[in-house]
């Protein structure tokens, strides 16, 4: 009898303390894109420490990674993420249209709600045997270019828009840009499925003379394949690829985590977070820190998507949707 009582009491005690633990610790889920895994691992530990120091409360951040738009679809279909951190604005725009994030999400945080950005660079074989310096060299006969299929990867869309915009930046017309891009894709022997696939094709399968990819990918190439196998080439101009963030209103309303989610995204703009981003080769929004890491982020002439394409959603419609400009490159002879 007494044994039973003690047992019940202790069980009750365990249950109570467990529920207290759960109540004390808020958990946020960040749905993010594939290659941001390492960055957010570092950022999360910095944020957890910062949050403990300023509020005295514990917080845990869980991560879910996948292809950027696959993640957006998952959140739309019911994945209870508190925040989304993507690499293309169209992915968050999609969530805004379906009412999962706020309509004015891009104005809720500074700089188009993009604490970091990246740009498109070239990777060439060591010593640059084909002497590739700028966009014009990519359309020369005999040069093989590896890019991602714009239909299946944000990396590929940015590469396409960067090529198109480089012509406009020099004062060319849209017609000239279309002609240039058509010539460029004639030099593409393989369309990779995604960013990492493209890197593998270029480095492990040894196909192609130049890989067009995100600046942030260049650092991971050196880390994973050893420095000195490839050289990075900075073209005269390239595109700003923003990495937008947003609070998932549907989830935070349900979980009551609005404040924590905002704090999590706000802290991305802090000097500490911006430094972490710079170490992961993501261009920080803060000019001071960008300058500090000038050796990584060589200054090149940058243009935004909005300058030449209106917006990324607009570009998506005109260029990448079925029957768009990209399809014409392959279907109209």
């Amino acid at each position, binding site marked *: 009898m007494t044994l039973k009582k003690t047992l019940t009491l202790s069980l009750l005690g365990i249950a109570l303390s467990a529920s207290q633990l759960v109540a004390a610790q808020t958990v946020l889920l960040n749905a993010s894109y594939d290659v941001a895994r390492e960055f957010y691992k570092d950022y999360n530990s910095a944020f957890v420490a910062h949050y403990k120091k300023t509020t005295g409360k514990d917080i845990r951040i869980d991560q879910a990674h996948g292809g950027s*738009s*696959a993640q957006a*679809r998952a959140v739309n279909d019911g994945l209870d993420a508190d925040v989304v951190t993507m690499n293309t604005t169209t992915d968050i725009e*999609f969530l805004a249209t379906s009412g999962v994030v706020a309509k004015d999400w891009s104005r809720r945080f500074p700089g188009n709600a993009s604490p970091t950005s990246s740009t498109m660079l070239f990777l060439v074989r060591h010593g640059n045997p084909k002497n590739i310096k700028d966009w014009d060299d990519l359309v020369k006969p005999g040069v093989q270019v590896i890019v991602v*299929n714009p*239909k*299946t*990867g944000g990396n590929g869309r940015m590469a396409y828009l960067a090529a198109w915009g480089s012509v406009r930046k020099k004062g060319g017309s849209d017609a000239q840009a279309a002609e240039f891009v058509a010539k460029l894709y004639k030099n*593409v*022997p*393989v*369309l*990779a*499925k995604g960013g990492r*696939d493209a890197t*593998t*094709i270029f480095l*492990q*399968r*040894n*196909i192609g003379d130049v890989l067009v990819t995100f600046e942030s990918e260049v650092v991971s190439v050196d880390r994973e394949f050893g420095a000195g196998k490839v050289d990075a080439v900075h073209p005269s101009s390239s595109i700003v690829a923003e990495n937008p963030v947003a609070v998932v209103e549907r989830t935070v309303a349900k979980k009551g985590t609005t404040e924590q989610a905002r704090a999590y995204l706000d802290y991305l703009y802090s000097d500490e977070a911006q430094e972490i981003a710079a170490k992961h080769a993501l261009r920080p929004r803060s000019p001071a820190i960008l300058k500090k890491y000038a050796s990584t982020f060589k200054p090149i002439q940058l243009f935004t998507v909005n300058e030449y394409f209106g917006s990324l959603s607009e570009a*998506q419609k005109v260029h*990448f*949707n*079925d*029957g768009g400009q990209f*399809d014409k*490159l*392959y*279907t109209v002879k």
Partner: protein
Amino acid sequence: MAATPFAVAGGAARKRATRRVLPGFNLTLGFTLLYLGLIVLLPLSALVLKTLTLTWAQFWAAVASARVLAAYQLTFGASLIAALVNAVAGLLVAWVLVRYRFPGKKIIDALVDLPFALPTAVAGIALTALLADNGWVGQVLAPHGIQLAFNRNGVVIALIFIGLPFVVRTVQPVLEDTEKELEEAATCLGASRWQTFRYVIFPSIAPALLTGFAMAFARAIGEYGSVIFIAGNMPMVSEITPLIIIGKLEQYDYAGATAVAVVMLGFSFVLLLVINALQALQRRRSGGAP
């Protein structure tokens, strides 16, 4: 004494068996329908419902654009070739595994199932590493102008890889069951080796072979993971239909994606029906034996 109740019960069961094939037929049929409905029909009807949100013109634009048509051709063509190759090669493998004894047979037997177990992406990456111009196999073939990766050849090879176990595993048990005495009798009656195969062995394994072929074919049509790394994914040339579906999802065109899926399903269903009909025909001809 003790045997009587058994005999009575047995007799009753036999009487019932003449009326209904299975005991508890209503229950089992009900379960079968419910299970199939939940697991197979429910997701498929969701697919069709989503497609129905499209107008006829939108549907047509989604499923019949030049890029998509090229993808159907590649998917069905490559799947057919791969399934045919597997039907021949798989029959040989099954034959060797059933009829001969050799050291390491158990290991070889287990190897056959590997394509089932291996994540398809791993298969795709491994095949690409092997067949690319700098791979073990690729570097031997490249100087002769033979390229097996990043084109349509790669698609077929990947599909052959994933389809092999289907043929082996369907033919193997049937081969094990065929009586060797029949072959001996055929030989005694003066049949040549070819005649024995053509008129004695083949008719008994043909239905199983056809089933294996159909399964390998159906599996190949839906395959994505392994093909995507080796295909090169060039529009109009080496894009498979599942890639088109992923492409549509990337542009948040859910309805367009399901429309293409519905067309694929329709095609596959018709093809599988035809194969089943062929099988029935074959069975009737060979006297409905197995």
